[in-house]
């Protein structure tokens, strides 16, 4: 499929990278030649210099044959105009990145279809939602919701001396019952693997487990965490992500504090957020953090625009005794580094954006796709269509690719951990965990 990406920024680059890996024909359009050179030298995509709102440029990029148009520059209005300037056509999905909160206030008047856009995505808000879910499940480093939240995929680091430390999956399964909880992947020393029953869990392993909503706390207990309720959160920075997160906290009645260095932005936040405490100060100001009792907060979220600032302030917060810390990192090459120095929970805006976009680009049977931060793994949520040849076959007879696992079947909003004797039915949701090289093969198994 031909995919046009307008804007070669962080989001555009990352989406192009993932789509190119899946053998799509990607054309990246940007006005900045240097940026395009960088893209061209790193990715197997075509580039075109020009403005995304110029229809000649879009035509030259082959918009007539394209299946997807992604307008993901950092300017909302450019993205909208770009989508508006391309006439609607069957088989073309137009996606615009719009992150200004005011655009979502318009209700009916500002529905995407009025702009000739099929989908508005808001990476900043996606990231804030993801972070909020992470904060809610205190210990988790990753969290993805399926079937409206009934089924959750959680990423956890096994603590030393945890109940599962040193046990094989088979032993654990015998203890907790295999029907409610399934370990789908283990990440150790930067390698992701899909375990079988003989795999042994060790302390500091990063474990991805799929569980029903009410089993999530048990999963955390097994990895050595004690459950806690979220009441106070401190956020550093004045990014849009920080704004969305602060607003989410307000909506859930959680006490939020935002640290902002810039006086004008601090004022802007104070006007927009009614119940959040806005403090003017630097995120690395140890004295201020101590005075405001950061040690007594449940979580610290570093959401400034600079990765370095986020890392330093996260370290300061950890030093002052904050248990849960979420660090925003724009540069994905910092992710392994951050984990090595103990900042377990790092989030990346471009991965969030890529997740949001990829979910919708691979249309058809796919409901939801989640990409994990520093691994190549993806979780794909398929709908089993009526003419799928797999229907009725016993699962042990189905040949899944080596690096993929059928994690869960959701049937009538209930979660089923599949056994070899189970079979798929039409209308089921099949949640598959797969490493990147197995994704195309898995996708072929579930045609729309």
């Amino acid at each position, binding site marked *: 499929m031909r995919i046009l990406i307008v804007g070669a920024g962080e989001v555009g680059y990352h989406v192009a990278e993932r789509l190119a890996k899946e053998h799509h024909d990607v054309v990246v359009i940007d006005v900045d030649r240097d940026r395009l050179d960088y893209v061209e030298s790193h990715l197997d995509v075509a580039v075109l210099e020009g403005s995304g709102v110029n229809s000649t440029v879009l035509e030259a990029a082959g918009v007539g044959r394209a299946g997807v148009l992604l307008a993901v520059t950092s300017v909302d209005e450019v993205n909208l105009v770009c989508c508006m300037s391309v006439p609607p056509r069957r088989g073309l999905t137009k996606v615009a990145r719009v992150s200004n909160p005011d655009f979502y206030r318009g209700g009916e008047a500002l529905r995407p279809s009025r702009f000739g856009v099929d989908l508005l995505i808001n990476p900043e808000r996606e990231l804030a939602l993801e972070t909020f879910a992470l904060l809610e499940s205190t210990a988790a480093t990753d969290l993805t919701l399926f079937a409206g939240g009934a089924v959750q995929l959680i990423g956890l680091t096994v603590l030393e001396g945890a109940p599962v430390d040193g046990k094989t999956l088979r032993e654990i399964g015998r203890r907790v019952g295999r029907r409610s909880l399934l370990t789908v992947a283990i990440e150790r020393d930067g390698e992701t693997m899909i375990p079988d029953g003989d795999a042994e869990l060790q302390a500091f392993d990063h474990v991805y487990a799929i569980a029903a909503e009410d089993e999530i706390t048990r999963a955390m207990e097994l990895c050595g965490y004690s459950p806690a309720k979220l009441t106070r959160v401190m956020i550093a920075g004045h990014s849009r992500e920080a704004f969305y997160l602060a607003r989410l906290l307000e909506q859930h009645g959680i006490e939020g504090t935002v640290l902002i260095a810039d006086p004008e932005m601090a*004022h802007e936040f*104070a006007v927009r957020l009614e119940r959040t405490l806005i403090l003017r100060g630097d995120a690395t100001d140890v004295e201020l953090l101590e005075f405001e009792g950061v040690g007594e907060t449940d979580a610290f979220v570093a959401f400034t625009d600079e990765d370095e600032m986020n890392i330093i302030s996260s370290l300061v917060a950890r030093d002052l005794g904050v248990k849960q810390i979420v660090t925003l990192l724009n540069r994905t090459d910092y992710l392994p580094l951050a984990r090595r120095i103990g900042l377990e929970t790092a989030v990346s805006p471009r991965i969030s954006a890529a997740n949001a976009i990829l979910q919708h680009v691979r249309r058809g049977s796919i409901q939801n796709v989640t990409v994990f931060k520093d691994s190549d793994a993806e979780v794909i949520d398929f709908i089993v269509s009526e003419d799928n040849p797999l229907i009725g076959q016993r699962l042990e007879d189905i040949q899944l690719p080596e690096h993929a696992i059928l994690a869960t079947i959701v049937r009538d909003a209930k979660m089923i951990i599949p056994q070899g004797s189970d079979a798929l039915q039409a209308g089921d949701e099949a949640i598959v965990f797969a490493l990147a090289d197995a994704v195309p093969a898995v996708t072929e198994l579930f045609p729309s």
Partner: protein
Amino acid sequence: MRYREVLHVLGGLLMAVAVAMIPAAVLGMREGMWLAWLVCLLIPGFMGLVLFALTPGKVDLSAREALAIVGLGWIGIVLTGAVPFLLTGTTSSVAWALFESVSGFTTTGATVFAVIEELPPSILLWRSLSHWVGGMGIIVLGVAILPLIGVGGAQLFSAEAPGMTTDKVQPRIATTARLLWGVYFAMTLILGSAYLILGMSFFDAVNHAMSALATGGFSTRTASMGYYSPAIQWVTILFMFLAGVNFTLHYRTFTGHPREMFRNAEWQWYLASVLAVSAICFVALGVSEGAFSFELVRRASFSVASIHSTTGFGTADFAAWPLVAQVLLLGLMFMGGMGGSTGGGFKVIRGAVVTQHVLDEIRKVLHPRAVIITRVGGKPIREELVLKVLAFLAMYMATHAVGTLILATLGNDLVTSLSASLAALSSIGPGLGEVGPAAHYGHMSAPALLTLSALMLLGRLEFYTLLVLLIPSTWTRTHRTPRPPRVWRRQHRRAVVRAGRKADPMSSWPSHP
């Protein structure tokens, strides 16, 4: 300051006073005082006409000119308003006449007359009319109906209308003024009809309806509202409360958005305050009298609504109530009605802003680096506005203190001085002590009455409009561009004729040599 333009608008306002006087004058002429009332009519009418005719037409006003017009206009209005009291022989004291006139136009409702029934009906009607015209504002009325003013109407409007901010219900200020006056007129009609249905005489109904909607307080009876039936008193309670509500909200209700009133934060504060103080007064009265009855509910809520809305009608002598109730009522005298209502006082919205700001300051002690925006009902208030409100508070307190000092120096006791000064400043009428609801201001000396008149005007116009008149720079002449010499104008006319079109007159002026 361009004097000719200012005088032009002032002339228009004087004519408006004359028009407002017509109903009272007609009544007076039928009573036989036709010469006196004719002179009363002619003074503002003739002066206004002369000023109006001798100065240029429709003008654009600057902010300074607007303030001067409102300040001078009000002084002129209350002066001409005092004339009927003197000419009809109602009183021979200039101070009394002036006090009564100021008390009328500022909707205070304090009177120097001991027995109201002795006054001629034409004078009674004139007192109520002055309330009614002063309530929504005679200048607002001028903006609404006289095609006098181009740009600058908004400045006139906000210099006269009380409250922290002026909100326009329509983009054009003249339309806004017209609609607000329309709502005011309609509500007066409704209340008047209600009074008629409940058995009040036509004359009394007209007077009381105008007085209540303006949050005035003049009555045609010495016993004020206490003369009438409980049903009439209940209706009055309701309408006194409503007159203390921002008329923009009434306009929204009339146009089918009644929910806006219930959602309005200032309204919620106002209602809560009326209910809470009524309840406390009820309990205090019940305890002191040893019996609780439904009649007490009426007495308590009547006085509270009357004081809170700054009307000043009376059914009970609250100066004889338990002290706790008296002190609470003093607090309400200070607070007054909502911004944009016909009521006076500090205004509920300002009270809310100050309260919120104080709470925010307490929070700032806990979090010295916090950036806190003062909010009322969730809506952010600009810091600049908060400072203005605080300055207004300081001004209010200071003026009250000076007023109390002067009254006490003139030989009044402390409670009387304190409450009379506040009752004048907040345009209530009755105070405590010797000026309680059962008493009147007739025993006060002329200097004391003039002091109170000044306080009433200051309170009604919210200080600044009058105080800028004292600043010399207000009166500096605006530099006018001199007209070009006649020769140039002739040349220009010819050039226009030659060009055979209507040229922009400024474009072809020859440049200065």
